[in-house]
C-alpha cells in the first residue's frame, strides 16, 4: 500500500490568485492522478500526472488552468490558476502501483475561493 499526504489541507483564497497543492507519496507509484470533488458531486478526474512529461488532461480541463508537475515517482503538484469561486472544491491526489488494481488517495485539499 501507499500513504499519501497533501499540503495544504485547506485554504481560503482570493479570486484571481493561484494556489499550488503538493502531493507526496511514501513509496514509488507508477501513476498519479488529480481529482476534484465539487460540493455535492462525485470525484472527477482532472488529469494523469506523468513523470518527466506533460500531464494528460481529461475533457474540460486544460493545462493553463491546472498546470501539473511530477518531477519524480513520489511527488506531484497541481496548481489552480486564476481562481474563481467556481474552483471551490476538494482536490485529491491519488497513486496507483502497477501491480495492484487499487488507487490510494490523499486526504484532500479543501479550497474556498472568495
Amino acid at each position: 500500500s501507499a500513504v499519501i499526504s497533501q499540503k495544504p489541507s485547506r485554504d481560503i483564497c482570493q479570486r484571481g490568485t493561484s494556489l499550488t497543492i503538493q502531493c507526496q507519496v511514501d513509496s514509488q507509484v507508477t501513476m498519479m492522478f488529480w481529482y476534484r470533488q465539487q460540493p455535492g458531486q462525485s470525484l472527477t478526474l482532472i488529469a494523469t500526472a506523468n513523470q518527466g512529461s506533460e500531464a494528460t488532461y481529461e475533457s474540460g480541463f486544460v493545462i493553463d488552468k491546472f498546470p501539473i508537475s511530477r518531477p519524480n515517482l513520489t511527488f506531484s503538484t497541481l496548481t489552480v490558476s486564476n481562481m474563481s469561486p467556481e474552483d471551490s472544491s476538494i482536490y485529491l491526489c491519488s497513486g496507483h502501483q502497477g501491480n495492484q488494481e487499487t488507487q490510494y488517495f490523499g486526504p484532500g485539499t479543501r479550497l474556498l475561493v472568495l
Partner: protein
Amino acid sequence: DQQVKQNSPSLSVQEGRISILNCDYTNSMFDYFLWYKKYPAEGPTFLISISSIKDKNEDGRFTVFLNKSAKHLSLHIVPSQPGDSAVYFCAPLSTGNQFYFGTGTSLTVIP
C-alpha cells in the same frame, strides 16, 4: 456523460441489518470494479473489488455482486455497523487505468 450512476444518494439502515448499495454503468469496456468508502475530511479508501470474470466477491461482512449483462453491481454489508456510516463510491476501472467514480451513496447506520 455520467458513465457510472448510483441512484440512491442516501440510505439509512438499522444496526445489524443488511445494507445494499447499488451502482449502474454504461460502458461495456469496464472490466474491473472497486468500491471506495469515504469519511468526511478524508480521502476515499479502498473497500472491495471484483473482476468482470466473476459475479461475486466476498470479504468478511462485505460482498460485491456483478451482473455484467445488466451492467449493474451492488455492495452488501451484513451485518451493518454504525462505523460503516460513510459515503460509498462505486468506481469502475477502464483499460487505461482510469477510474470513473459514481455519484456516491451516503450510508447511515442507526444504532
